[in-house]
């Protein structure tokens, strides 16, 4: 375990150092949710008024989940670059644990997501979001777990397809229904009954509901579903990522 932590820390430090040399990633990664918050948030005011509460308390959790999914799902692109330059093979010929090579990269993705989430929450509070500290902590924690799942899946996908040209459309195909059926932008209850029932089969929708519930202080049954799905997705994605790192290297 100590060796695993040391190795994953070495990989994390290396990844972080490279990212810090190009800080544009934080700004670019933040731009989309911040623009949504500033330009789309005000449009929600009359809509959310029907549900009661502040539109930012409702919208920021959705943006957090969006950040967790979309930001993390692009993590694999940098892995393809490293693979192409022989870095992954060089790491695999060391005695380091295969899972440490994955987790070191996940730590970097989670740190990046955490920084972005904090900026988003602070901006939401400035705009009038009304949420408890405890709720925010739970919501951000769930977002980080979901982001970790997406980053692990993205890395696994990257090492499977090994091509940006294949990866980009695959991510689009997966993300589009997630965006439309998870209630990130608007409550699914606003839609037709069949659409809401369909969205019940979308795991991310339950995570969005849980993060939103945490921000509103509603720790009810939907929270359990959301937390459960978050852990299931995280477990499955990490298993997949580790398996791909291992399989590649026999």
């Amino acid at each position: 375990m100590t060796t695993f932590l040391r190795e994953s820390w070495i990989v994390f430090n290396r990844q972080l150092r490279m990212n810090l040399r190009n800080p544009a990633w934080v700004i670019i990664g933040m731009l989309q949710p911040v623009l949504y918050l500033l330009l789309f948030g005000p449009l929600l005011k009359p809509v959310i008024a029907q549900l009661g509460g502040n539109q930012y308390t409702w919208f920021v959790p959705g943006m957090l989940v969006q950040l967790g999914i979309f930001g993390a799902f692009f993590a694999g692109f940098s892995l393809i670059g490293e693979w192409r330059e022989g870095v992954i093979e060089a790491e695999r010929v060391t005695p380091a644990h295969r899972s440490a090579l994955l987790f070191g990269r996940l730590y970097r993705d989670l740190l990046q997501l955490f920084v972005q989430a904090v900026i988003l929450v602070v901006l939401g509070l400035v705009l009038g979001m009304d949420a408890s500290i405890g709720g925010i902590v739970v919501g951000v924690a769930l977002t980080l777990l979901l982001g970790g799942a997406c980053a692990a899946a993205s890395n696994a996908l990257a090492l499977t397809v090994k091509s940006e040209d294949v990866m980009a459309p695959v991510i689009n195909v997966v993300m589009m229904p997630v965006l439309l059926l998870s209630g990130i932008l608007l409550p699914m209850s606003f839609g037709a009954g069949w659409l809401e029932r369909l969205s019940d089969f979308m795991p991310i929708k339950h995570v969005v509901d849980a993060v939103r519930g945490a921000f509103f202080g509603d720790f009810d049954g939907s929270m359990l579903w959301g937390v459960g799905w978050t852990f299931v997705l995280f477990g499955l994605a990490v298993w997949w990522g580790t398996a791909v790192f291992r399989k590649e290297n026999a």
Partner: protein
Amino acid sequence: MIRARGLVQTFHTGQGKQKREVPAVRGVDLDVAEGEVVGFLGPNGAGKTTTLRMLTTLLRPTAGTATVAGFDVATQPVDVRRSIGYCSQVGSTFSGAYAGDEVVDHGMLYGMSKKAAVAKGHELFDKLQLDGLWKRMPKNMSGGQKRRLDIAMALIHSPSLVFLDEPTTGLDPQARINLWQHIADLRSKEGATVFLTTHYLDEADALADRIVIIDQGTIVASDTADNLKAAVAGDLVDLEVTTDEQVAVARDKLASISQDVEVDGHHVRGRVARAGKAVPGLLRDLDGSGVALESIEVVRPTLDDVFLTLTGRSLRDAEAAAEAAAAPADIADTADTARTTTEGA
């Protein structure tokens, strides 16, 4: 240091009805002694890189066994990795990272402390003429500097066995010769056993104590360059006599030490094993028979002659054919495709 028996690697390509098995390595036996420099020679697609990837634990053999540095590649891969250094043909460093950082991080993944890795890294940078490039990014280095950096990465943990996969591919002639010196130093100064793959004849000739030739996944020869040339091809001796009458005498004299004598005008040619030793006696015989030579030329065979004799194809032709065909087995020998096909391994 390396012992392999019946190593086989079969890749699976395609889907559904297109699915097929492609044998890349078909039962390789290999022995490398401690301190040896072995050149693994063959055209693209011969199975060089695939064999090397099995020996470095990057690919699990489909069949056969191999021990590297005393450890089994299938059951003790971590011990194998601790003992070897590996320089891939595509490189090992990220183009946007500092060279020194890459070497230190790599050493730390082998369990070295940061302090030890930094010290060893600086020592290697000095030895490999990379001094002053610690804070340089690989994308701003020349091809030769990048390859020397890859070698530094492979040596950071002081391995007893170093695998170099086509170390000079893509370098200009001056950089290649410079790198050869550093590779030669690996044994003389670092005391390492070196196993290098190459498709350059001159490289194998210049660097290796012993050359193992692989073609279509099978080892076709293994010996020193001199022995291979002598046993398989021999030196070409070309005698030029001054008169028609002397041709027959010269042909008979040359035939006493060569089995394939040809006559072309006043030229009499034949392959002679170790001509350096045989020609002085031949000259005395010719002189004693009153044959006056206009000229004599002794041409040493190349490894391409050896390859041609062993496989019926020129190494250069084999390479061109492999590139043109670009069949999965051939492509599997390049780093990129070897990776794309490892899912089937």
